[in-house]
């Protein structure tokens, strides 16, 4: 099982002949991801890492069934690439680039939704169904198959936590990066719901951060719908209010989305909240 992607997912890499695209395509292939096509306008007919390159997604989709596409595309061109992928029939879209204008993101996310397409990101490390398929940029070695579902707003913090899981012998079902931007495709609630229905997943780690109210909504959802145990870590306890801390999402404005508010909401519905990342595996072992 696992959620959203699995061992049968066929993946296209948009921007595969660029530096980032090439490097991470290689890593994904090494992880076992079925990359069937790369897209780079003007480079059609070439091969990268044994994968055929096409000029357009439409051309790639004529030759291959494409289930998912991942964007290694500069932010100003990401909207166009996303629409191209949706138009070509991809049902999962992984948006890696950061700094995509928020108006473009809203268009991408709403258009995808109207077409039944799942958007992971933008500004996400991607998604890994451990042991089966990795789409995005996380380092391969820590992602081993197991029973823990992970959903997070931040990338490297997720690696930190998945790394801690690995050191403690805990594998994952699927690890989902929601993305750090203001308008992203998936919410904690969307992913928690999928984990709840995934037989492989026995417990869930939620990696939140200050700003917004996604964690509070997750708490409500957990109360009403989740039977599986959830452990959380919320970053940003020591962040000063009103300062942008890198993620557009991680800004405390007008007294909303505070660290304390989030922790309280989660604890109230029975979620164990770790004070520091390295405590997560211990809390998990208690509930598994």
């Amino acid at each position, binding site marked *: 099982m696992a959620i959203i992607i699995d061992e049968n997912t066929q993946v296209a890499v948009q921007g595969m002949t660029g530096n980032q695209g090439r490097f991470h395509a290689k890593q994904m292939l090494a992880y076992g991801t079925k990359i069937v096509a790369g897209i780079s306008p003007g480079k059609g007919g070439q091969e990268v890492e044994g994968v055929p390159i096409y000029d357009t997604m439409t051309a790639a989709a004529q030759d291959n069934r494409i289930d998912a596409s991942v964007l290694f595309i500069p932010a100003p061109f990401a909207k166009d690439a996303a629409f191209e992928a949706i138009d070509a029939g991809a049902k999962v879209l992984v948006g890696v680039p950061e700094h995509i204008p928020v108006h473009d993101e809203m268009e991408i996310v709403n258009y995808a939704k109207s077409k039944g397409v799942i958007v992971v990101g933008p500004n996400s490390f991607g998604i890994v169904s451990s042991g089966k398929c990795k789409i995005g940029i996380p380092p391969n070695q820590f992602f081993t198959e197991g029973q823990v579902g992970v959903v997070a707003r931040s*990338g490297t*913090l997720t690696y930190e936590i998945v790394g801690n899981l690995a050191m403690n012998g805990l594998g994952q079902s699927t690890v989902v990066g929601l993305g750090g931007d203001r308008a992203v495709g998936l919410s904690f609630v969307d992913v928690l719901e999928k984990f709840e229905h995934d037989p492989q997943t026995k417990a869930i780690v939620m990696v939140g951060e200050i700003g*917004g109210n996604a964690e509070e909504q997750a708490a409500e959802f957990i109360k009403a719908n989740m039977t599986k145990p959830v452990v959380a870590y919320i970053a940003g306890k020591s962040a000063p209010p009103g300062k942008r801390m890198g993620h*557009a999402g991680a800004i405390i404005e007008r007294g909303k989305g505070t660290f304390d508010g989030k922790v309280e909401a989660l604890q109230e519905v029975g979620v164990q909240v770790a004070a520091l990342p390295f405590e997560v595996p211990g809390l998990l072992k208690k509930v598994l």
Partner: protein
Amino acid sequence: MKLFEYMGKELFAEYGVTVPKGRVVTSPEEAAKVAQEIGSTVVVKSQVLSGKRGKGGGIKFADNAEEASAAAKEILGMTVQGYKVDALLVEEKIQIDKELYLSITVDTAAKMPVIIASADGGMEIEDVAEEKIMKKHIDPLVGFSPYLGRETARRLGLTGALAKEANKLMAGLVKMFHEKDAELVEINPLVISGERLIAADSKVTIDDDALFRQKEAPVVEERTETEKKAHELGLAFVELGGDIAIMANGAGMAMGTLDTISYYGGSPANFLDAGGGTGMEETAQALELLLANKPKAVFINIFGGITRCDDVANAFIQVKKSREIPVPVVIRMVGTNEEEALKILSENGVEAYKVMHEAAQKVVELAKA
């Protein structure tokens, strides 16, 4: 990027939203001249990026050119809510029949722009009762449709000529929000003045990520010198005033690092997200930046994903060779190309941690020593 009130109002005027007659000035002489032109009572408003200028003494009325000059003299150069005043907006004092609230912003949860309106304006929207606030989403694939204007007018209690005014205003404002890549457009108060709706204030924030295509947007600099430099290097950098300089990659990781340092009793000097995939050169410059702020210790915390550990290690060794580093540096590295990185560091006599909280404890200890 937040705009000054007068910049927002210039955009309003461009999109057909009525604003009071007036102009931005930077001297008492100019203020007097504008007051003369207007020929009635004017209001002299400090142009700073804070919402509470009135309380800080940053807004004054003047009945004639002399009074305007005097008011300008008083306000220019003063500090309002922590911001130095360099510019003033001098505009006609308008007749206020009623104050309304109107804004458009991004609703993160709905992933759509949202119109927020209330017949109770002039105060902070957070202080208005929820049931008196209209929230109406704009589908980004559809944009403005006149019914949004009609519904807004209805919720603002406007009828007749004022309802028509509201429709026109909304069409312009939504267009502006979209075309100018705004994150926030706020009019508070929106003033009913006879049969006109006048934007008596403006708060406009432009999406930093869209500045590449907003070539005509004015430039407002909120950053400190160091933050400015970091921005030029493509780094997310915020000064925090403590004594442990921190470099981490990824915003979440950087926040987690701050939290961990704080947890062990340390005081972070800054937030620095070195980002994903920054090369060796940028990393070296980021290090220089950290050292420039004279911390008591430096903590480099890297979990390599898109960032490669060996790049960071090489950058560190390069800086170390080129200059004296007067404070202790604690390095923690794990992830992509970790092996190579540790080898590079150890060849240069530097030891690195693999576990984050152990490294954090160490750097707090060293900073206190």
